[in-house]
C-alpha cells in the first residue's frame, strides 16, 4: 500500500464486536470508595486515639521542643508537646501536651510534671539519657481521683515518686544548714530517706522540712524519735579529747539529717505520716531530755560580758541546768546608768527531787524555793570556762559568807543577785595595787635619787684620789715596816728557841718559884699544926 494514495474510508475493515461485559456502575468507583474507607478509618482511628489535651505551666521552657518533647512515665511515652506559649502574665510558659488516650485516668489532681534534664549532684547523676535524646517531661501520677487538665510543673524532679512505699514526716528547724531537697536521711548510717520539700513558715518563722522515710524504716520512727542535722563534720573538743562525727562522706558536702530513738524509750508504735518533729542541731542536742518547763531569771552583772554568749551554759555546782537566752543593754534615765541584763533559762526538770515519791510534802513552788535559796547565799557568778578562749559561763552556787539578800518576787522574771566572778576579783585586786603604786611620789624619789647619785659620784672620785695616794706613799713605808717586822720576828724566834737565853732564864725562874712554893707549903702546914705560933712565935727548938 502506498502511503501517498488517498484512503477510502469505506474500504477499511469493520471492527468486530468488542467485549460486552459492562456493569451498570463502573467498577472504577470502587477505588474512591476504598480510598474513602481507608481515609475514614484512619481519621476515626486517630480521633479515637486522641487523648486528652493538658496544659502544664513551667517557669522556663528550656529544653522543650514542640512536636518532639515527650511525656514519659516509667519510660513509657504518654504524650507529646504540641505547643509552647508564654503565659499572659509573662511569668511562666504554658506547655500544651497531647496525651495518649490510655493516660486519661492518670490525669488527676496531684499528678506532677517536671522537665528531665541531665543533672549532676552530690547525691548522684541523673538524666544521662537526655544528653542524647533531648529533654523530656517526667510524670508522677497523683493519688487523687478528681480529673485535672491544668497542671503546674515542678522546677526540679521530685525526690519521692508517688508509689514509693514509706511515710513523710514534718520537721521544724530553726536553721536549714546545708540541707536541701534530696538531702539524705540516715538511720544509724544507713540511708533510709530523703528530704522531699523545704519551706519557710511565715507564721512562726521556722523552716519546715518534709522528709520521706521509705519502708520498712518508717516503722522506726516513733513519737519519741529525735531528728538532727548530720551535715558536715561535728568536731567537738572536750576533756575526753577531740571527737569528730559524721554520717557519710556525702553529708559533708551535701548535708543530711539523721534520726534515732533514745535508748530509754518504750514507745515502739510507728508515728503517723505528717507527724511533726523538731530538728535538733546535733545528736547530743537531739538526745537530751526535752526541756518542757523552763524558768527565766534576770541577772545584772557589773563586769564586762565579753566572752558570754547566748547559749552559754548555766551551771549549778558543775551540772548544766540551763542556758543563756538573751543579753541586752538597758539605760536607766533616772540614774543615767547602763545596766546589762542577762536572761537565763533554767530547766527545773533537770533538778530532780530526791526521794520525791517518799515525800508527803507537795512539791515546793520553784519561786519559793529560789527565794529561800537566795536567803542562804545563792548567787550567780560569771566564771571563765576556758582560759584559752576566754569563754564565760554563768555559775549558780551558794556563797554563805555573802550578806543575806531578799528577792523581790513581784516582778518577773526574778532578779537573781550576782557576785563578782573570780576574774573580776583578781582584776579589782590588781587595780587597787596599781592605784597604790600610782600614789607613790615617784617624781620626788627620782630627784632625790639623782642628788644621791651625784654625791656618790663625788665620793667615788675622792676615794679614787685617796687610793692613788695610798699607792704612792703608804705602800713603800709599809714595805719597810714589813721588813722590820720580819727581822723582829726572827729575833723573837731566836730568843724563844730552847737554846735561847730566854728559855734558860725562864727555867731558872720557874725552879725558884717552885722552891718558893715549897717553902710556902711548909709554912702553911706548920701554921696548920701550930696556929698559936702566929701569936707566940716559934717555940724554941727542943733541946
Amino acid at each position: 500500500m502506498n502511503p501517498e494514495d488517498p484512503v477510502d474510508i469505506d474500504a477499511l475493515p469493520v471492527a468486530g464486536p468488542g467485549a460486552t461485559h459492562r456493569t451498570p456502575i463502573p467498577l472504577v468507583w470502587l477505588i474512591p470508595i476504598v480510598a474513602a474507607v481507608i481515609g475514614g478509618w484512619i481519621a476515626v482511628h486517630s480521633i479515637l486515639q486522641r487523648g486528652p489535651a493538658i496544659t502544664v505551666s513551667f517557669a522556663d521552657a528550656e529544653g522543650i521542643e514542640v512536636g518532639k518533647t515527650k511525656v514519659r512515665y516509667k519510660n513509657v511515652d504518654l504524650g507529646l508537646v504540641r505547643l509552647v506559649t508564654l503565659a499572659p502574665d509573662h511569668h511562666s510558659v504554658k506547655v500544651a501536651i497531647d496525651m495518649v488516650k490510655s493516660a486519661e485516668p492518670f490525669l488527676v489532681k496531684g499528678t506532677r510534671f517536671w522537665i528531665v534534664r541531665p543533672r549532676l549532684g552530690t547525691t548522684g547523676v541523673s538524666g544521662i539519657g537526655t544528653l542524647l535524646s533531648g529533654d523530656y517531661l517526667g510524670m508522677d501520677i497523683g493519688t487523687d481521683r478528681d480529673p485535672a487538665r491544668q497542671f503546674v510543673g515542678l522546677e526540679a524532679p521530685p525526690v519521692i515518686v508517688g508509689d514509693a512505699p514509706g511515710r513523710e514526716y514534718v520537721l521544724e528547724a530553726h536553721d536549714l544548714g546545708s540541707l536541701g531537697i534530696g538531702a539524705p536521711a540516715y538511720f544509724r548510717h544507713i540511708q533510709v530517706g530523703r528530704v522531699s520539700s523545704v519551706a519557710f513558715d511565715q507564721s512562726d518563722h521556722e523552716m519546715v522540712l518534709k522528709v520521706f522515710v521509705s519502708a520498712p524504716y518508717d516503722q522506726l520512727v516513733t513519737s519519741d524519735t529525735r531528728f538532727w542535722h548530720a551535715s558536715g563534720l561535728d568536731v567537738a573538743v572536750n576533756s575526753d579529747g577531740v571527737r569528730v562525727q559524721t554520717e557519710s562522706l556525702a553529708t559533708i558536702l551535701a548535708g543530711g539529717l539523721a534520726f534515732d530513738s533514745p535508748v530509754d524509750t518504750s514507745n515502739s508504735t510507728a508515728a503517723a505520716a505528717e507527724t511533726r518533729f523538731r530538728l535538733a542541731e546535733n545528736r547530743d542536742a537531739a538526745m537530751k531530755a526535752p526541756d518542757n518547763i523552763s524558768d527565766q531569771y534576770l541577772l545584772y552583772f557589773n563586769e564586762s560580758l565579753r566572752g558570754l554568749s547566748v547559749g552559754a551554759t548555766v551551771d549549778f555546782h558543775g551540772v548544766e541546768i540551763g542556758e543563756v537566752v538573751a543579753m541586752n543593754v538597758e539605760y536607766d534615765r533616772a540614774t543615767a546608768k547602763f545596766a546589762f541584763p542577762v536572761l537565763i533559762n533554767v530547766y527545773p526538770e533537770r533538778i530532780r527531787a530526791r526521794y520525791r515519791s517518799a515525800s508527803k510534802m507537795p512539791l515546793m513552788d520553784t519561786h519559793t524555793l529560789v527565794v529561800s535559796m537566795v536567803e542562804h547565799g545563792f548567787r550567780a557568778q560569771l566564771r571563765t570556762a576556758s582560759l584559752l578562749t576566754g569563754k564565760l559561763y554563768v555559775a549558780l552556787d551558794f556563797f554563805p559568807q555573802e550578806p543575806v539578800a531578799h528577792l523581790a518576787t513581784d516582778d518577773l522574771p526574778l532578779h537573781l543577785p550576782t557576785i563578782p566572778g573570780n576574774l573580776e576579783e583578781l582584776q579589782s585586786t590588781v587595780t587597787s595595787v596599781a592605784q597604790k603604786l600610782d600614789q607613790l611620789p615617784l617624781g620626788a624619789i627620782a630627784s632625790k635619787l639623782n642628788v644621791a647619785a651625784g654625791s656618790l659620784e663625788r665620793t667615788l672620785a675622792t676615794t679614787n684620789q685617796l687610793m692613788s695616794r695610798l699607792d704612792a706613799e703608804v705602800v713603800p713605808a709599809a714595805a719597810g715596816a714589813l721588813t722590820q717586822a720580819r727581822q723582829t720576828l726572827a729575833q723573837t724566834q731566836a730568843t724563844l728557841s730552847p737554846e735561847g737565853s730566854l728559855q734558860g732564864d725562864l727555867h731558872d725562874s720557874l725552879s725558884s718559884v717552885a722552891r718558893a712554893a715549897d717553902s710556902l707549903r711548909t709554912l702553911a702546914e706548920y701554921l696548920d699544926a701550930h696556929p698559936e705560933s702566929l701569936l707566940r712565935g716559934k717555940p724554941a727548938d727542943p733541946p
Partner: protein
Amino acid sequence: MGPGVISACAYGICACDTCGSHCRLRTRRVGACPTCGATVYARKPRSLVRAAALLIAAVILYLPANLLPIMHTATAGSAEDDTIMSGVVALWSGGSWPLAVLVFCASIVVPTLKLVALALLIVTTHRRAHWRLRERTELYRLIEWIGRWSMLDVYVLALLVALVQLDAVATIEPGPGAGAFAAVVVLTVLSARAFDPRLMWDRAGS
C-alpha cells in the same frame, strides 16, 4: 467537532493501539480489531468517569498522605515521626535549602498541582467548555510527563529504609503516610492516563 478539527472519530474510523491497523466502527464506539483482535475504541471508554473516580480517590488519600508521618526515625534514645512538611521544614532549618526546595516541589507542589489540574480538566471537559482548549491540552501533557517525578519521596524513603537498618543506633521505617502518598501519586498517574484529552475537543465541538 472542535473548532476546525476533523477527527477520525467523526468518520467512524479508529486505529488499533496494538497492531496499528485502522478499521471502521459501526454503531458503538468500541469494537475488536479485525487484524489482531485487540479491543479498539474511538475514545477511551468512560474516560471522564474513570478519571474522576481515580481523582477523587487520590484527593481522599491526599489528606492522610500529608498529615500522617511518612517516616519513622529512631536514633539512640529518641524516636521521631516526620510528615512530608516537617521533613521539608527540617531540611530548610538544617540549611539544605536546595534539597528542601526540591523535596517541597516534588512532594507538595507537584501532587497538589496535579490534583488541581486534573480536576480542572475533568470539570471543564464535562461542561463542554471552549475555554483555552490548546492550553488545557498542553497542561495535560505536562501532567502526564511530570507525574512520575512525584514518586521521588517514595524512592528516597525506600532507599533510606533499606540502607539505615542499624538496629541499635538508628532505624528508619516507613510511616502510614508513605503508603497514602504513594497511592496518591499512582492514582493521579492512573487518572491522567484514564483521561482522554481528545474528549476536550470532542465535547467543545458538539
